[in-house]
């Protein structure tokens, strides 16, 4: 990192050219990675040429060394006598990105294979779990998503008849979640559980496949309309706190009761056409509390980063932290720091001033070619006889952590924060009052909602999309750190379970043989595969 930064600093400069003793031209340059027409990732020296006249910035031109091969002139009349013409051109030959394995001379690679390793997660750590791991080709359509064995509170998730159809590929089976217009609830359950105030984690793994490409905005990728809604914690009241709040050091708390009627809902969207995640005023969850306790709830999380930043930002940072301030300026909006992936996905939008709607945030694993025979043709995902040229897998991690905000006397507050994929989606306060002990099972509403018909952007066609369910789990932990550890372990185990989709192969994915090397363009990199490389054999 320091090497790069030093070099940037040492060479980042401005050029001043005096004309008639008072006018000047400024030159700035920057760099970023870019993808060339043949799929190479190369460093890109980018220039921002502008001419200042009377200390006013004028006619800024942003150009890329990978696209500007001929001389271009920036012309500015800076006085009645003179005009300033700048001539610039790129120098040098485009070079190649590295491949998976080094070779000298004629290709002579060994056989190299790729896969994921198994990680174990015990169901005994979970309160409930729905999973498609046990599905087989002989499984039939059902309206009931049965709970896996070994969890603490097994119950079944019941929906419309035959709304869940087993489909599979690469040795992995999933439930195709039937579309129903109008946003009807497909699977809907109320369950009774004994409420426990402990750090909890919810994991949802699903995929959305789209049978048609493109949209009116001209992007190369199909829109994603997966809508998932989950109602959490409909009514929570009266806890035995001396057992459950042991870690919170509640004073004089032989017995407290939580008096709050809490109702909140969270919706998770993926809007491919939203360039960065946003907080929309719609679908604001409600929270109602007794005794006038102030309540603050964030609007619903909406965004197209449905994978946790843990799998996105860190890995990409080294390559992508050169995203420039100028991007923000040109977008004219907030540029979330975690949007490295957007930058990777389609970096050109900034200086070409393309609509940011063209930028697709989800990782379409259908784009990833996995055939050594022809590395240019992606192996598309086929499920249940239907081809999904666009197919993305999403891992949703939700954490809910309670803590005592004020433990000075009777007005003790419990605060419960909920984060979805690293972003706070809900925060509510509840007053704790001593007196009652109730541990009666309460009713919870759990829904999985597939609103394929919603039309949030007028130019988006949703009807070709289909949701696929893999796993839905909920567990408790004694401490926040344990909560994170368990959740990540669970995600790892699920990633292994569905590895067939990630590598698009029922066994090991062959990356090289003696003459060919698979190409994994950066744009097709999936967060859980998280690799990119070129195919040196295809380059000249």
């Amino acid at each position, binding site marked *: 990192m*320091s090497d790069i930064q030093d070099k940037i600093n040492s060479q980042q400069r401005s050029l001043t050219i005096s004309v008639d003793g008072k006018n000047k031209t400024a030159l700035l340059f920057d760099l970023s990675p870019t993808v060339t027409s043949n799929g190479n990732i190369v460093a890109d*020296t980018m220039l921002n040429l502008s001419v200042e006249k009377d200390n006013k910035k004028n006619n800024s031109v942003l150009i890329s060394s990978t696209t500007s091969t001929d001389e271009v002139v920036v012309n500015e009349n800076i006085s009645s006598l003179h005009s300033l013409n700048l001539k610039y051109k790129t120098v*040098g030959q485009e*070079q*190649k990105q590295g491949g998976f394995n*080094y070779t000298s001379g004629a290709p002579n690679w060994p056989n190299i*294979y790729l896969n994921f390793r198994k990680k174990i997660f015990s169901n005994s750590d979970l309160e409930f779990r729905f999973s498609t791991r046990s599905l087989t080709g002989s499984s039939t359509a059902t309206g009931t998503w049965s709970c896996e064995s070994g969890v603490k509170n097994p119950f079944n998730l019941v929906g419309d008849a035959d709304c869940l159809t087993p489909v599979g590929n690469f040795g992995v089976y999933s439930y195709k979640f039937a579309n129903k217009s109008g946003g009807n609830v497909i699977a809907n359950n109320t369950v009774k559980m004994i409420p426990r105030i402990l750090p909890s984690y919810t994991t949802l793994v699903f995929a959305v496949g789209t049978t048609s490409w493109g949209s009116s905005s001209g992007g190369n990728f199909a829109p994603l309309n997966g809508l998932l809604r989950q109602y959490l914690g409909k009514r929570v009241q009266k806890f035995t706190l001396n057992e459950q709040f042991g870690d919170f050091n509640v004073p004089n708390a032989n017995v407290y009761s939580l008096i709050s009627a809490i109702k909140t809902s969270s919706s998770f969207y993926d809007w491919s056409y939203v360039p960065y995640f946003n907080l929309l005023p719609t679908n604001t969850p409600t929270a109602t509390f007794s005794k006038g306790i102030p309540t603050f709830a964030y609007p619903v999380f909406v965004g197209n980063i449905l994978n946790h930043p*843990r799998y996105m930002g860190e*890995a990409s940072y080294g390559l992508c932290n050169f995203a420039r301030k100028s991007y923000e300026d040109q977008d004219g909006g907030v540029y979330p720091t975690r949007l490295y992936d957007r930058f990777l996905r389609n970096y050109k939008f900034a200086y070409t001033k393309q609509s940011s709607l063209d930028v697709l945030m989800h990782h379409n694993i259908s784009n990833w070619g996995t055939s050594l025979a022809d590395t240019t043709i992606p192996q598309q995902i086929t499920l249940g006889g239907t081809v999904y040229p666009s197919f993305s897998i999403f891992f949703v991690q939700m954490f809910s952590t309670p803590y005592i905000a004020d433990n000075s006397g009777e007005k003790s507050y419990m605060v419960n924060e909920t984060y979805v994929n690293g972003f706070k989606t809900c925060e509510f306060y509840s007053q704790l009052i001593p007196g009652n002990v109730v541990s009666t099972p309460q009713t919870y509403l759990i829904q999985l909602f597939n609103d394929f018909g919603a039309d949030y952007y007028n130019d988006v066609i949703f009807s070709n999309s289909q949701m696929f369910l893999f796993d839905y789990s909920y567990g408790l932990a004694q401490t926040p750190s344990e909560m994170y550890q368990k959740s990540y372990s669970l995600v790892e185990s699920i990633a292994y379970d569905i590895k067939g989709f990630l590598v698009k192969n029922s066994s090991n994915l062959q990356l090289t043989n003696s003459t060919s090397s698979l190409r994994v363009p950066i744009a097709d990199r999936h967060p859980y595969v998280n690799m990119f490389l070129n195919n040196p054999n295809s380059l000249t």
Partner: protein
Amino acid sequence: MTTYYTGVQLADVVTGFGGYTGLVLVNSGNFPIKYDINISKTNLQGIDASDCNDTNTGTLFISADLNNINLSNNEVELTVNPSSSGVVYVLHRPYRNFTSSFITAGNIDGYESAEITVKSLSSVGDEDENITIDVTGRRIKTFSTPPRIGSFFAVEDYNSTLANPLYRNFFWSVITNNTFLTGFNLQLSANTSFTSPTTYQYSVVQNQDANLPLYGNYKGLLENIYSIDLTDFTINTNYYARIQGVNNAGVGDYSYCTGFDNYNVDLDGTGYSGLYTSPGGNLKVNYRVLNLSRYDTYEKDFDLYEYLVSQNNNSYDFRRYSGIYVKFFSNNAPALCNYVASSKTTGAINFNIPYINGGDGFLISPNSSNRFSIELEFNNCGLYGHGGDGLIWKNDNSNLEWTYFEPTDGGPIFNFDNYTYNAIPIDYYIYKDIYSVMYAGSAGSKGWLINIENNDALDTQAFHIDGFKIINALETP
């Protein structure tokens, strides 16, 4: 107050073996007692030196230590604390061999006797009356049936000089005291019923030291661990083994063998007692996978070959194995451990096999697919190819001409040799967790040349801007 027996019958001992019987002195008083123990009036009837071709005459003696024997020792001092006990051993002076005429003449066994006197002196000055114990014993020429052998197991090992380099090293032990054996029969069978087994006869080594019994020591054969290498194993073939003790009385019951892949053996009670049920474990030998784990924080141009050789006792002979499995972990998980490459011709992970003495530098054995596998599992690891250099301008001031170095290619993630040894190719398997990343190096960028349009001397007065390189993650820690 001292409690004692007035008479002791010693355990029998057969010709050629040593033997002992322990006398326990218990101090149930309130003060330490010093015991002065003497043996006297030793006597042997029915046998003399001429019967056993032995220069050691005499019969019983005593010792406080079975491992430090003095044949002429007739006195032992022993201090015993209150509510504690001490032991003095009465031992049979070894007769190494009877004459055949003695054995076949139907002579009676030898009878031996002695008197042990124990003098006790309390730490407070009290002195008890002497204790006198009469001891008797027998030297017999008749062996009893051998008992079952214990701790019988076989460890797979490798010897590159053998035609079939994989073999098994068998171990067994006598687990009961006063076991009088002159040998063992070890049988190896290709079937579970031990039909037509190969029998290996193993004789107990005779001692040359005249102060020791002919076989074993004064504890008999206890504490000895016997072993033998059997090298007749064919790869991937079923084998079973059993063993029995042998002496003049015949053979004992069989014990069946337990197989292990390495020498870190942890026998359970059944295996120790020799009661593992027939036919025992399958002792099939196969080339194994070498399993390794390593934790790193940062590595540049990691040399996998060098690492594997170092983990194989600095040997490049891996013919014991048909594969290698290495797990890479980050020292700072969940932070990634970064493996980076320093040039476009090296990988973050390198496996390049040198020629050693003009020959192959990596000797391997095949798996069931007649290939050798190198499996690398990455957990919380970042693997980054080298970022290519950007274009670099240079200027020769003598003539004001500008030239430049072209940008360079990015490097690969791995640098693995395509290698075959004895028609066995290496296949590589890369396993990753969801956190690990693998990025090839990006190519360096072009440079820029900028000038004012009406300046004809473009290359001399222009601005020359170098290209850039992208360094994936951290090339320096």
